[in-house]
């Protein structure tokens, strides 16, 4: 019985900590929906400081909190695999546009990352910081995997990806009108490639077609970046 009650205590203790994340998420979602989808009030922008504040309040250290949230971390694996399902639905759009989409993903995706690395080194950022923002244009589950692999801080990349998405959707329309990109397919592709899931949500608000291309851009850029970034980092360091 002693063992059983000890196990029960462990389970109830850890699920209690997951509860903190759930509270942050639910409150964050509620605020986000009430605001009509304001990117500055993204669920993570509201939920994360709330949970951090609660941890300070109850004097819990981050390691204990993070350790207790293993189940959420574990779910990230199957969810990354699940990204294939919406992406597979967009693949049939690809053949007639292969050249433009392919070159935009290969060249544009590389440029986005190279540009982030270049600007960060010009601004004299530490190597750790550079490694923690290299995967910034990639959708978070893939960015986390890449960042772990190249040795950056997972805590930073999640926020960096989020901020990148917010900046992306704030500036995209201005750039599209300035460069006369009026075709919704290309607007979607660029939104997905530069602002990942946040851009894709924005693209779906515009039209299903724009959203479909955004999904395609996000997926292909994630795959491409995870292929070229680890060797590029090895080459540079």
């Amino acid at each position, binding site marked *: 019985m002693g063992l059983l009650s000890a196990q029960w205590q462990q389970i109830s203790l850890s699920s209690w900590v997951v509860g903190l994340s759930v509270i942050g*998420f639910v409150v964050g979602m509620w605020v986000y929906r009430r605001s009509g989808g304001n990117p500055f009030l993204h669920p993570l922008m509201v939920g994360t400081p709330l949970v951090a504040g609660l941890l300070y309040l109850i004097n819990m250290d981050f390691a204990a909190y993070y350790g207790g949230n293993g189940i*959420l971390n574990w*779910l990230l694996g199957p969810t990354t695999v699940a990204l294939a399902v919406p992406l597979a639905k967009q693949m049939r759009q690809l053949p007639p546009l292969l050249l433009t989409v392919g070159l935009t993903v290969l060249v544009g995706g590389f440029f986005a990352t190279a540009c*982030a690395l270049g600007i*960060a080194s010009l601004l004299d950022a530490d190597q750790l910081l550079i490694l923690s923002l290299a995967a910034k*244009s990639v959708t978070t589950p893939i960015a986390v995997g890449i960042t772990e692999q190249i040795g950056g801080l997972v805590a930073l990349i999640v926020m960096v990806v989020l901020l990148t998405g917010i900046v992306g959707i704030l*500036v995209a329309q201005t750039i599209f009108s300035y460069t006369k990109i009026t075709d919704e397919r290309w607007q979607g592709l660029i939104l997905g490639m530069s602002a990942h899931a946040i851009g894709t949500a924005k693209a779906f608000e515009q039209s299903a077609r724009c959203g479909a291309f955004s999904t395609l851009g996000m997926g292909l850029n994630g*795959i491409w970046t995870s292929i070229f970034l*680890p060797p590029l980092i090895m080459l540079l360091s």
Partner: protein
Amino acid sequence: MALLVLLVFQWLGEIGVRAGNIALPGPLLGMLILLLVLTLYDRPLEFLDNASNLLIQNLSLMFIPPSVGAFFLSAQIYQQFPSLLSTILLSTIAAILFMALLIRLLDGTPEDKPD
């Protein structure tokens, strides 16, 4: 059931990454294998759609623990936040501008073509 399917592909990915010594996260290779299978199979699989949607819609929940970590970093990292924010701002604008110009170059017609 659908979660099991996703896990099987994740394991395939993880085995593949280790066996082939591939520099990719295991779940990502699993995603690529599943993408290949779904593209070749090309028929709707409702059970997989539902589970995938549920997981993807709740992605933000899974990112709360790591992003809370951003409030518990070393002072050395916080000192560099101005560079971090400038990099995000400048490189995102540059990337969108570059891709927009690239697409203009590749696809000369600016008007939306009808389906």
